[in-house]
């Protein structure tokens, strides 16, 4: 079985992190974002994954070589020479996606983190016999997204409404699709939107069905949602009693700590924290609702909450970093500094406090 992951472009909403690394390789819960999806696909028997990219293919290709052998799944890149939208890349990768088996193929958006009920989706797709299945998820504020209006009992999709002004439904497109090869016949090799052009046509033919995603869903393409997403993800690990979660007297709630990270005495870590490989958290540190990327050193008595600390950065003694502070790669916050929502580009030293949310270039 095959799959396509729409990786797309520059990941500008996740800057400054994506100034150092292409977005799919930015770690989420201590694992590159795209690896979460590739692993889920491998688990249900997908043998080949195509990454539709248009940015930094060399970096992606190096990463892929490493994981192809580790995971035992074939990974190829399909590079757009011009942006092809959300459907065009499927046409571009046609030869990799369809073979003689006639099996449907998965399409995933790279920014989406969820429980990936892919087997259930395969069963659902078989049972309704339509041309395409999409996962939808329930949200509180549907007007921010594209709402999928569907028949409740069968899941048959009636129509899509982009950012509706009045309430038409609370299920939105979760960005995970299972498509029959015949769908590719309807997609031309040009910039095409799958939500605006392809799916409405299939829905009109009554061949598009939606399955409601059980469990969490998050588009982690921007820092605020990344932090919320981590909470949801760790929560789902907890529900499955995952051994990966850390425990101990210094841990509160759900916390992930890489085995190579070191944590000092008298710390209080959690809830909703991920600490990456090679990190050093010195004594007396308080961490909550944050992600500490690979190679970071958090010095004594520091306090970090609701923030993301980029690779190889340092946070000084008694520093307080909070309220959506995002530190890029190799950023050094000096001792006793306060950062309230500072967004700091890579290779900077913060020598004076940031009192209000501000971008530091």
């Amino acid at each position, binding site marked *: 079985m095959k799959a396509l992951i729409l990786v797309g*472009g*520059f990941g*500008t909403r996740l*800057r*400054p992190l994506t*100034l150092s690394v292409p977005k799919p390789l930015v770690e989420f819960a201590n694992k590159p974002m795209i690896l979460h999806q590739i692993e889920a696909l491998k688990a249900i028997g997908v043998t080949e994954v195509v990454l539709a990219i248009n940015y930094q293919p060399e970096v992606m290709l190096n990463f892929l070589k490493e994981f192809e052998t580790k995971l035992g799944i074939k990974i190829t890149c399909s590079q757009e020479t011009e942006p092809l939208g959300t459907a065009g890349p499927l046409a571009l990768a046609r030869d990799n996606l369809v073979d003689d088996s006639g099996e449907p193929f998965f399409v995933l958006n790279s920014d989406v983190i969820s429980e990936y009920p892919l087997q259930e989706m395969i069963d659902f797709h078989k049972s309704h016999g339509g041309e395409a299945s999409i996962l939808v998820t329930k949200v509180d504020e549907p007007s921010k997204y594209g709402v999928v209006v569907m028949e409740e009992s069968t899941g048959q999709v009636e129509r899509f409404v982009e950012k509706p002004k009045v309430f038409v439904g609370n299920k939105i497109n979760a960005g995970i699709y299972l498509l029959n090869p015949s769908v590719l016949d309807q997609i031309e090799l040009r910039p095409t939107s799958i939500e605006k052009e392809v799916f409405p046509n299939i829905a009109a033919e009554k061949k598009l069905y939606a399955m409601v995603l059980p469990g969490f869903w998050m588009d982690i393409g921007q820092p605020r949602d990344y932090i919320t997403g981590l909470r949801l993800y760790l929560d789902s690990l907890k529900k499955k009693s995952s051994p990966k979660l850390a425990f101990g007297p210094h841990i509160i709630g759900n916390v992930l700590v890489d085995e190579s990270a070191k944590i000092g005495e008298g710390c209080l870590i959690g809830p909703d924290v991920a600490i990456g490989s090679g990190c050093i958290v010195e004594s007396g540190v308080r961490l909550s609702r944050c992600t500490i990327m690979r190679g970071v050193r958090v010095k004594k008595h520091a306090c970090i909450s609701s923030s993301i600390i980029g690779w190889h950065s340092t946070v000084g003694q008694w520093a307080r970093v909070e309220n959506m502070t995002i530190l890029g790669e*190799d950023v050094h916050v000096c001792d006793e500094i306060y950062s309230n929502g500072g*967004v700091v*580009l890579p*290779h*900077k030293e913060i020598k004076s406090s940031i009192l209000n949310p501000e*971008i530091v*270039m």
Partner: protein
Amino acid sequence: MGTSEERVVAVIMVGGPTKGTRFRPLSLNIPKPLFPLAGQPMVHHPISACKTIPNLAQIYLVGFYEEREFALYVSSISNELRVPVRYLREDKPHGSAGGLYNFRDLIMEDNPSHIVLLNCDVCCSFPLPGMLEAHRRYGGMGTILVIKVSPESANQFGELVADPVTNELLHYTEKPETFVSDRINCGAYIFTPDIFTAIQGVSSQRKDRATLRRLSSFEALQPPNRSPPSDFVRLDQDILSPLAGKKQLYVYETMDFWEQIKTPGMSLKCSALYLAQFRFTSPHLLASSDGRKNATICGDVYIHPSAKVHPTAKIGPNVSISANARIGAGVRLISCIILDDVEIKENAVVIHAIVGWKSSIGRWSRVQAAGDYNAKLGVTILGESVTVEDEVVVINSIILPNKTLNVSVQEEIIL
């Protein structure tokens, strides 16, 4: 041995990538020394100035960038100016004088009688022939280019006191808290090869002190050695300051313009200064409106030969347009740098801005800023491949590469 035997080697310090973050966001896409001012890469201006020195044997660019970043430029400029230009990469920081010392063998290969040392991020008329002549008259080890500035701004720089008759450097202090002098160090020097002896002297002195620290137990109890390693020698504090008043160093004053190019805003100001200079040194580089076939040109404007400008556009003053840019009908450009492959559509207006490579400015859109070269958001900067859609207004903002603006923004940094 007459003056025709006296060869000169020039060294231009170009800096490195992680050191200066002040030139972001432009430095995210290009090494600062290669960013164009008045249509030529920043480093081209000191290089051209060096070319006016008789018997120039070699130009070295010294910095921390990867060699490949300068490979193309160095080979093309060597061919164009018919003088060997070579990029040398420092493996670790040696300080402003230590860097020069680090490459002394290469520099002395041509057996130069004089060494010109320039900083790349200085915008200046570089009056090198006159300075060299004065240096020969003074007979000292070094001559420093100085300029008079306002007393209030002097303390951002190195301040010098010189004898008004002999021009000998009497006193030098770097960024003093109290007023010392309104003459400041321009970052351009001419030395005789004795400079290497002086730098070595500082190095050895440091080594001896370090050895003493190890041998003397009292010294060993002192707090960790905070002075730099022995091969780290700063020109200002370690050479100029101590040698002032010893009849070794002299000053040469320039009455022309001088600025430091630390921020993108300043690059726009310096581009204007160089364009104004072209009017005297290379007027053929400036555009002029001749007849109805060409666009209307006001003031100093540079347009690359491959750029296309619609005849109904009005360009200038202080505009540089780089290769393959396309300026549409009815466009108005004032005080801006338009980089390669930019497309500016009909009737758009750009004032006090830098428009990054491959960007696209929509019809009737307006990209502008107040034009305060020193303010953080005083000049609007669009990074590489930014799209400003039709009729959108962008004021006093910085937009990082690969963004599309479909709503107007003001006073914002968009990552």
